[in-house]
Each structure stands twice: as C-alpha cells, then as structure tokens.
C-alpha cells in the first residue's frame, strides 16, 4: 500500500520531518516500510501493516498512527476517542493486567493516556474500542497497544527466576553423545536432504521429480557421498568417514536413525572398521534406529564436546577447479624438526597453496646424522584450472627456499 507523505502532513498543524527520520520509530511501533519513493515535492511510502488494519490504510489513518506513536496532535476531528455509544466492543480489564503481561509498572493514568492516543476510551474497568479497530479484541491486544506506544526498547530486561530442579533431556542428550563419540572417532557429520526420488510418502507439488518422496533410509545417500568425497582426500590410502543423524519415513512411521560409514579408495588400503560399540561387525556402512542404541550408550562415558565446538571459525570458500598435488622429500640434519621445515614450505608456497604441507614420512637410519622427511602439498586456483607449469613454478619457489639452508638436501 502506498501512502503520500504530503497527504499525511495535511492532518498536522506543524510541518512533518522527512519520512526517513521517522522510519526507525514507525518500524519499531507500527508497520514495515518497504520503500520510500521521492517524487516531485512528495514522498511515497510503501507500507505493509500487520495485523490487518483497515483503519490505518489511508492518509488520515496513517496520520492518526503517527500522532499516536509520536504523541503529536492532529487536526481536530481526525482522532476521536471511542465511548460507550460509538464503541465496536467493550473489553473489561484492569490496568495491572497490562503491567503483568509487559513487566512494567505504569500508573492507571499513563495506561489510559496511551490507550486514548489510539482512540480507545477508558472508563472504570472498561476499554471502549473504536468501530474500525477490528484487530482489538482481548486484554492482550490492549497490552500490545500500550507496548508499541511505550516502546519495546524501554521495557526493562528482567532475569527469568531460576528453577530449583535440574532439567534433563535423556533422548536429546543420548543423540548429542552419539555425535561427539563419532566425531572423536574421526567421523564427520553430514546433514543430507529429506527428499528422495522414491519412498513411501510423497509430497504434493514437489520441487523436482527426484525430490518427490521422503527418504526411507540415510544409508543410500551416505554410501554415495562416501565414494564422492574420496576424491578430496590428500592421500589415496586415507578413508572417508561420515555419519548422519536424521529422520526417515518408512514402515508407516517416522523415526530418527543413525547411519555411519567408512570408505577406502582401494580394498588394499583398508585398515579400520566402524567403531566396535556400534555392533556393526565388519560392515563398512551401518544404519540403526537411534532408540536401539540407547542401552549401549548408557554404558559409554560421555566424551567432552569442547574440541568439536568451533564456533569462532570463519568459512573460507573453496575452489571448484581441480587441485594439483605435489610431494617434497628432503634430508635435514638430525635436530631440525619437521615443523621448522613445514614453516619454510608454507611461507614460500605462494597464494596457490590450498592444503598442507602434511608430513607423511620421517625416517632416520641408525647411526646416520640426517633425517629423511616427506611432505605433501596441494596447489589450486580460485579462478581456473592450474597448468603443470604453474604448479612447477610454485614448487620451484619452495625448493629454492629450502636449498638456501646449506645442510638441507632436497631429493629430486
């Protein structure tokens, strides 16, 4: 709905400030202002009023609201307080009701004055509601009127009284425990989509044909994502380890499931199975209704969640172009640490370094004065697919920095 500022100002004797100066106050107390258009000598306000307020949907109504919020007087006849004869309805109330709801201690006179500003007449224990205020029907509605005129901002924040009993949420806490147990065993949590190409329960007007049903299990997706994520490992022999806790819709009911899986790029790399407490045996993917795990979980100590709560991290966008992986091997004198070498690599790798250096080998022959070290790094660009030449240039920078140390010998 559009409101002309010039038309609104006709209802005031004093000139109005520019609408921009009042936006915050109007938004905090009355309606949303979705735009202000500056037209030759006027402003057009695009306003959205909730709940529905037929009384405020024109310039006179808007002016009445503005006068109520700001406490400014309008031309006589514009804002007439309702009484027993003109009221649409009467609400019985005592002023302390409103204070109790809002956590305020306004006097009866202050409350009457606020209600009068929105044309609600107050006599004794009765509030007379103007005929066009269809939204005012309950004591709570009166509290809303007083609150918005007084200002939500000004209501003092008051501590909730403390409770004597210590609450517990056994099922929720068991689910939290499973999550932390799996994270501490090296598993990373996924939150997949509830929608699936097939299932038992189908939605109307689905977003896409492959999203028409609700999933019946977590494992189909988990297996797929285990395989897909293998490509992002830095070492081919490392596994991908994932889990999900989520609702599935199967057998005529919905149920919270846990699915856990581990995948290796090749059978020969396999060295680990799912955690024994799951009871999954040698199976690489296991799914179970969470309630079935409760007896097992009771027997396990609750691990500390702190290492897995990293709310101060900032997300770094990752490149969708392929990366180039390189290894650096060198001999250093005994006493030079892998950390020292890694620092030199990191500081001289340039902006294309995205992963590593990760040390994957450290070896000293008995009686020798030197240590053999090997690191893996990956280069990647946010803008394009790197060429071998570009990776080579970046690598050369690292190698020449390493070779500046006379006793370090890079193996080529």
């Amino acid at each position, binding site marked *: 709905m559009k409101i002309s500022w010039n038309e609104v100002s006709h209802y005031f004797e004093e000139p109005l400030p520019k609408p921009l100066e009042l936006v915050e106050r109007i938004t905090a107390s009355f309606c949303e202002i979705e735009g202000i258009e500056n037209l030759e000598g006027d402003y057009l306000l695009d306003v959205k009023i909730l709940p529905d307020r037929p009384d405020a949907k024109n310039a006179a109504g808007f002016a009445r609201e503005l006068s109520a919020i700001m406490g400014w007087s309008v031309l006589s006849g514009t804002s007439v307080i309702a009484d027993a004869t003109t009221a649409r309805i009467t609400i019985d109330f005592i002023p302390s009701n409103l204070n109790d709801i809002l956590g305020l201690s306004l006097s009866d006179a202050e409350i009457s004055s606020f209600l009068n500003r929105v044309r609600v007449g107050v006599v004794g224990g009765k509030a007379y509601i103007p005929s066009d205020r269809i939204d005012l029907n309950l004591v709570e509605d009166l509290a809303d009127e007083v609150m918005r005129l007084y200002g939500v901002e000004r209501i003092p924040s008051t501590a*909730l009284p403390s409770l004597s009993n210590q609450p517990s949420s056994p099922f929720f806490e068991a689910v939290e425990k499973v999550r932390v147990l*799996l994270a501490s065993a*090296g598993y990373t949590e996924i939150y997949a989509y509830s929608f699936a190409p097939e299932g038992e329960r189908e939605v109307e007007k689905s977003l896409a044909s492959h999203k028409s049903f609700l999933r019946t299990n977590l494992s189909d997706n988990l297996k797929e994502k285990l395989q897909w994520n293998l490509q992002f490992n830095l070492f081919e022999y490392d596994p991908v380890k994932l889990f999900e806790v989520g609702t599935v819709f199967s057998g005529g009911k919905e149920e919270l499931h846990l699915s856990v899986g581990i995948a290796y790029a090749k059978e020969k790399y396999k060295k680990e199975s799912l955690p024994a407490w799951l009871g999954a045996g040698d199976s690489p993917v296991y799914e179970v209704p969470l309630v079935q795990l409760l007896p097992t979980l009771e027997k396990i100590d609750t691990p500390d969640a702190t290492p897995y709560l990293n709310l101060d*991290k900032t997300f770094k966008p990752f490149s969708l172009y392929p990366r180039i992986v390189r290894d650096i091997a060198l001999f250093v004198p005994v006493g030079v640490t892998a950390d020292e070498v890694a620092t030199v690599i990191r500081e001289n790798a340039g902006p294309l370094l995205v992963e590593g250096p990760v040390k994957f080998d450290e070896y000293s022959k008995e009686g020798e004065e030197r240590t053999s070290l090997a690191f893996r790094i990956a280069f990647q660009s946010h803008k394009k697919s790197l060429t071998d030449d570009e990776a080579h240039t970046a690598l050369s920078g690292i190698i020449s920095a390493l070779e500046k140390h006379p006793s370090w010998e890079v193996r080529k």
Partner: protein
Amino acid sequence: MEQYGHLHPLSQLIHRSWQFFKSHGFTVAGGPEIESEYYNFDALNIPADHPARAMQDTFWLKPLERREVLRTHTTSVDPRYLEGNEPPFRIIVPGRVFRNEATDATHEAQFYQIDGLVVGNDVHMGNLKWLLEEFYKHIFGADLEFRWRRSFFSFVEPGVELDIKWGGKWLEVVGAGMLHPTVFTRAGRDATKWRGLAFGTGLDRLAMIKYGISDIRLLYGDDIRFLKQF
C-alpha cells in the same frame, strides 16, 4: 590423516544453544516432521485462509485428505507439549522444518529452527527480552547490540522481533512474543491462569551469520571440503 572428525555446523550451534538453555532450566522437546494441519496451523491460531497454508509455501503430503504437512516450524511442538504437560515448564525445540520454495543462496526447502516456550503464571515481556538478549550474547559475544521492534505473529500477542548488529548491519534474528490466549485454550489450558513466552529462531541463518557462510546449500551438500572447516 586427521585424527578427529567434525560436527556439522548446525549441530555445533544446537549444542551451544542447549548449553545456554539447559543452564536456565529448559528441557528439550520434540515432535514429528510430518505434522497434522491442526498442530502446524490451527492450534497456533493461524487463520484458515492464511497464505502460509497454501501449496506454494507448505509441503502437503499425499493423499491430501489426510491433511498432513511437513512442519513449517518447530512451533508445532508447542501446542503438543502444552496439551501433554502440566505447566509451569520451559522447553526448547530444535529441529528440521520445511518450506516449499525454490532454492538459492539464501533459501532452502529444508532448514533448522529452535523454538522455545516458557510457561508460568508470572512470566512477562521483560523476561522474554532478557532471555533472548542473554541467548544471543551467548552465541555472538557479550558486547552485542540489540534493537527491539513490535511485530505480529498469529500465535503470540503482543509480538516482537529482535535485530542484532553484526558486521555493521542490523540483522533480524528472532520473532517472539507472549503466547496467544487462543493457543492455551485450544490446548486445554486456562489462559487466565498461565502466560507463555514463545520464540523461534532460524539456525541456518544464525550459522551463516556466525561462520560467514555465503550459501545455505553448503550446509546440506555433504562435502568434506566444507564440513572439515568447522
């Protein structure tokens, strides 16, 4: 390789929220993701002709005669809990919710909310303000700035909204209010005896603000390049 795994950012946020609410006497309540039209809308005083009920906003399940939806908010658990539990009580409801809308960087068809409900005979708007200010300070830091606005939601009266200042901008983070008497009455509780503080906050949005995540779809992409950052 890495010895440790990673909790999903939304799990981390839920856990951190739980630490706060638990210390203030809350328990966690849950409810179904396939919800009846009654609990998702009617019990919450949402009018029969409200646009949110329409098929372009809400996922209705087949067959339509069963009047079942994918819950559009975890607020649907409030009337269920109110029916089944004698007040006073304090609950939070973390959970997955659904809206039938096209997805883009800031919109998903599924996302997470934490709803909260405090029912007592002496709770008031001042308590609600305190609770939510303390909660967002717990998540975003003690020197957070707030801006309160009056707002409107069918299941509360009066209703308010809270903005926080983050990165120099005001961001709307939660809708809240005093539970509407009709919600008490429909749940079979005496609205003259009890008052309720209700609030609902979108967790994906909080995670995006807190972690600087640019695209909501990353949260549901199952990609270790994303997940291992947290």
